[in-house]
C-alpha cells in the first residue's frame, strides 16, 4: 500500500492525477457485457410489448455474442494485468468467461417463453443476467483481493433477485430469500478471510501476495495462524458459492425454487466461475501454501462427492436431483484443484466444460417438462421417449454423461481427473471419485429408466401435474414390456430413424437440448479440441509444475 507514488504530494491542490492505463482490448469482454446490460435495461423501458418481448432477449444474445467474440479474439494472447493490477486477462479467465457466456446464451434461450422475464420485466431480467455474467467475468479475472470480492458480489446480487423473479410463486421467492441470506453469509465469511490474508501478508494484489508467501521473508508465514485462518475462511466463502459440502445445503432448495432458466445459469455458470476463481486463488496466489490447504480441500472434496451423491439418491424432483448432482460434480472438480499441478488445472477446466455441456441439455428438457406438465417430477418423464424423442435422447445422453459412461464427454473428464490425481499422488482421492461415480449411477439411471422404461400413459401428464400423486412410484404402472401397442403404432406412423425427427416442444428448447446433447457425444468421441482448449488454462497459472 505504501508504494503509492503520490503519498507525499497529495497536499498540492494542483496535483495532477494520472489515472491508470486502461487497455481496452483486454478489458473488452467485461466492457461489452456492462454496456450490453445498460442498453438492454434501457430498451426494456420501451412501451411496445413486441420490442420488450423480442428485442430485449435478442439484444441480450447480441451482447453475449459480442462478449464471446472478444473473448475468442483475446484468447491465447500473452496474459496481461490491466487497470492498475485489478484484473489479469489470461487464458484461464477467458476459458471460464466463455463457459459462462455459453451458459448465459442457453439460459436466455430457456427463458425465451418463460414466465420469469415477463413477471420481472424483460429489461430488468435480462440486464440482471448480463450484470451477473459480467460479475463472473470480473471474478475469474480478478487479480486483487478487492476486485475478487466485488466480482463475487456483482455475480451474486443479480442472482438473488433473479431467483425470486417468479415473484408470485412461493418457491421462487423462498429460493431468492434463502440464496440471499446464505449467499451473504458466504460473502461475509469470504471477505473476513480476505481481510485476514491481507493482514498477514500486507498485500492485496494476488501476485504480491504470492510473492510474499514465496519469498524468504514470507517463509515464516507458512504456518502463520492468521494466514491459515484467512485461507480457511476463504475456502468456506468459495465453498458456499461452488456449493461444496457441507456448505451446499442451500443448493437443492434454491435450484428447485428458482425459475428453471436461472437454475440452469446458476448451476453451470456460477459453478464454472467459482471453480475458476478457486483455481486462480489457490493454485496461483496461495500455491506456496499448498502443503497446508491441500489436505483441507481434499477432505472437503471427498465429503462433497459422497454427500452430493448420497443426497441425490432419494430425490424425486429433477431440479433437486440435479442440484445434488451438481454438489457431487463440484466435488469432482475440486479434486483436480487439490493436486495443484498444471495437469490438475487442465483436468478441472476440462470437467468444467464437460459439466456445462452435460447440464444445459438436461435443463432444457426440464424446462420443457415443466411447460408440458407443470412439474419437474421424475415420474412426469414417463413416456417422454415416445412423446419427444429428441428431448428424451438429450436427457438420456446428459444423464449417462454425468454418470461417466464411455462415449460421452463425462467419461473423458473423469479419466483426466483420475489421471491428474494419480499423477499428483492423490490415488485415494481418485478412489473416492470412483466410489462417488458408482453411487451416482443409482440416480442417473433412475432418470433414464423413467424416460424409457415406463409405458407412455395418457394419464402420466395429468397425474404428474395433479400434486400428491406426482410422487407415486413409477413401478405402480403395469409393467408392460415396450409399452402399449397403440403408442408404437403412433411411433411407427411418424416414421424415420429412431423417431428422432418427430419434434415436439418449443424450438429454442429443442435447439439447446439437441446441441448440447450432441456435443456431449461428439466431444466424448473426439475430445482432442477440448483438450487443446483447456490446456491453455493450465499454462496460464505460472508457478505450477
Amino acid at each position, binding site marked *: 500500500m505504501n508504494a503509492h507514488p503520490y503519498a507525499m504530494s*497529495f*497536499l498540492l491542490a494542483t496535483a495532477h492525477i494520472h489515472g491508470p492505463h*486502461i487497455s481496452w482490448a483486454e478489458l473488452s469482454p467485461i466492457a461489452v457485457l456492462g454496456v450490453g446490460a445498460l442498453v438492454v435495461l434501457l430498451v426494456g423501458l420501451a412501451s411496445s410489448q413486441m420490442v420488450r418481448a423480442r428485442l430485449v432477449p435478442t439484444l441480450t444474445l447480441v451482447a453475449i455474442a459480442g462478449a464471446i467474440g472478444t473473448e475468442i479474439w483475446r484468447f491465447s494472447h500473452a496474459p496481461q494485468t490491466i487497470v*492498475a493490477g485489478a484484473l489479469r486477462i489470461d487464458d484461464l479467465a477467458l476459458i471460464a468467461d466463455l463457459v459462462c457466456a455459453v451458459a448465459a446464451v442457453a439460459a436466455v434461450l430457456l427463458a425465451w417463453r418463460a414466465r420469469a422475464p415477463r*413477471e420481472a420485466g424483460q429489461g430488468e431480467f435480462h440486464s440482471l443476467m448480463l450484470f451477473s455474467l459480467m460479475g463472473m467475468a470480473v471474478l475469474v479475472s480478478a487479480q486483487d483481493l478487492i476486485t475478487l470480492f466485488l466480482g463475487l458480489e456483482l455475480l451474486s446480487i443479480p442472482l438473488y433477485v433473479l431467483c425470486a423473479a417468479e415473484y408470485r410463486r412461493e418457491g421462487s421467492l423462498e429460493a431468492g430469500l434463502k440464496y440471499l441470506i446464505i449467499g451473504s453469509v458466504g460473502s461475509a465469511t469470504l471477505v473476513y478471510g480476505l481481510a485476514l490474508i491481507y493482514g498477514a501478508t500486507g498485500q492485496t494484489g494476488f501476485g504480491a501476495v504470492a510473492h510474499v508467501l514465496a519469498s524468504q521473508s514470507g517463509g515464516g508465514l507458512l504456518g502463520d495462524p492468521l494466514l491459515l*485462518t484467512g485461507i480457511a475462511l476463504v475456502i468456506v466463502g468459495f465453498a458456499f458459492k461452488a456449493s461444496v459440502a457441507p456448505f451446499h445445503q442451500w443448493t437443492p432448495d434454491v435450484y428447485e425454487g428458482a425459475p428453471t432458466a436461472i437454475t440452469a445459469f446458476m448451476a453451470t455458470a456460477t459453478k464454472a466461475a467459482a471453480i475458476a476463481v478457486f483455481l486462480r486463488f489457490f493454485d496461483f496466489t496461495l500455491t506456496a501454501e499448498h502443503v497446508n490447504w491441500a489436505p483441507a480441500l481434499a477432505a472437503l472434496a471427498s465429503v462433497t462427492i459422497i454427500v452430493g451423491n448420497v443426497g441425490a439418491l*432419494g430425490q424425486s*424432483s429433477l431440479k433437486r436431483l440435479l442440484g445434488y448432482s451438481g454438489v457431487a460434480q463440484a466435488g469432482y472438480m475440486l479434486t483436480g484443484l487439490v493436486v495443484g499441478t498444471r495437469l490438475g488445472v487442465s483436468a478441472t477446466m476440462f470437467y468444467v466444460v464437460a459439466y456445462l455441456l452435460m447440464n444445459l441439455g438436461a435443463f432444457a428438457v426440464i424446462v420443457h417438462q415443466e411447460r408440458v406438465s407443470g412439474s419437474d417430477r421424475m415420474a412426469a418423464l414417463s413416456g417422454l421417449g415416445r412423446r419427444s424423442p429428441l428431448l428424451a435422447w438429450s436427457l438420456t445422453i446428459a444423464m449417462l454423461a454425468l454418470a461417466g459412461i464411455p462415449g460421452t464427454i463425462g467419461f473423458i473428464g473423469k479419466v483426466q481427473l483420475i489421471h491428474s490425481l494419480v499423477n499428483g499422488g492423490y490415488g485415494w482421492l481418485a478412489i473416492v471419485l470412483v466410489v462417488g461415480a458408482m453411487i451416482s449411477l443409482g440416480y442417473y439411471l433412475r432418470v433414464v429408466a423413467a424416460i424409457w422404461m415406463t409405458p407412455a400413459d395418457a394419464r402420466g401428464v395429468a397425474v404428474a401435474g395433479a400434486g400428491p400423486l406426482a*410422487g407415486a412410484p413409477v413401478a405402480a404402472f403395469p409393467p408392460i414390456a415396450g409399452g402399449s401397442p397403440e403408442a408404437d403404432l403412433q411411433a411407427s406412423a411418424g416414421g424415420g430413424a429412431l423417431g428422432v425427427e418427430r419434434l415436439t416442444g418449443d424450438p429454442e428448447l429443442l435447439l439447446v437440448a439437441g446441441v448440447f446433447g450432441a456435443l456431449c457425444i461428439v466431444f466424448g468421441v473426439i475430445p482432442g479440441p477440448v483438450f487443446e482448449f483447456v490446456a491453455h488454462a493450465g499454462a496460464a497459472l505460472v508457478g505450477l509444475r
Partner: protein
Amino acid sequence: MSVVMFFLAAGAAIIGAIGVVTLRNPLYSVLALVCHLVALAALFLLLRAEFVAAAQVVVYAGAVMVLYVFVVAYVGGGEEVSAGSTLRILGPLFALALAVELFIALLGSALSGIHRYGAPYKLGFGTPEQIGRLFLTDYLFPFEVASLLLLVAAIGAVVLARRRRGLEEGALELKDLLAMPRPAYTGTIAEGVGVRRVREQLEQAHGGVTEVVPAGAPGSEEQS
C-alpha cells in the same frame, strides 16, 4: 490510552453484535446495531481513518438505520418462528467452535501486534482527498464495479418491490398458480441437518395439509 479506547470500542462492538442477534424486539435489535456501528466507527478512528469513521456514523448509523427503524415501525415485528431444539443447540455449538478457531488464530499472531505501534502513520492518510485519489488511480476498477453494484441493487429492489399489474400476455395460467406441492420439510435447511422437529411444527401449523413424506428420506420413493 489508545489501548483502553480500543478495548472499550471492541467490547461495545461485540456487545452490540450479540444484542442484534439475541434481542427479541426488532426495534431494540436495530438500536443494538446502531451501537455496534458507532463502536466500529470508534475503531476506525483509532486507525486514523477519520473519513471512514465519519461515513460509518453518517451513512450507516444515521441514514440506513433510520430507514430500518421506519421499516420496523411500519411493518412491526412478525411472529417468532422458533427453530427446532436440535438447531437451537447445534447453532451455538457451531458458533462456539468457529469462535474458538478464530481466537486461536488471533491469539497466535495478531495480538503480538498490541505491543507495537503498527503501520507507520503518514500525514494525510485517510483523508477524503487521498481516498478519492486512490479510487481514481489504484482502485479505479473496483470503484467502477462498486458503482455498478449499486445500480444492480437498485434494479433488484425495483424488480422485487414494485407494484405488479399482472402479466402482459395471457395472464397467469391455472397451472402456474397451483403451488407445486412438495413434501413438508424439504425446502428447509432443517432437511440438510435432519431436524424432524421442524416437520412436526409445520404439520401443526398447516393442519397436516402438506405431504408428510420427506423427499430426502430413504425409501420415500420406490424404485422407478
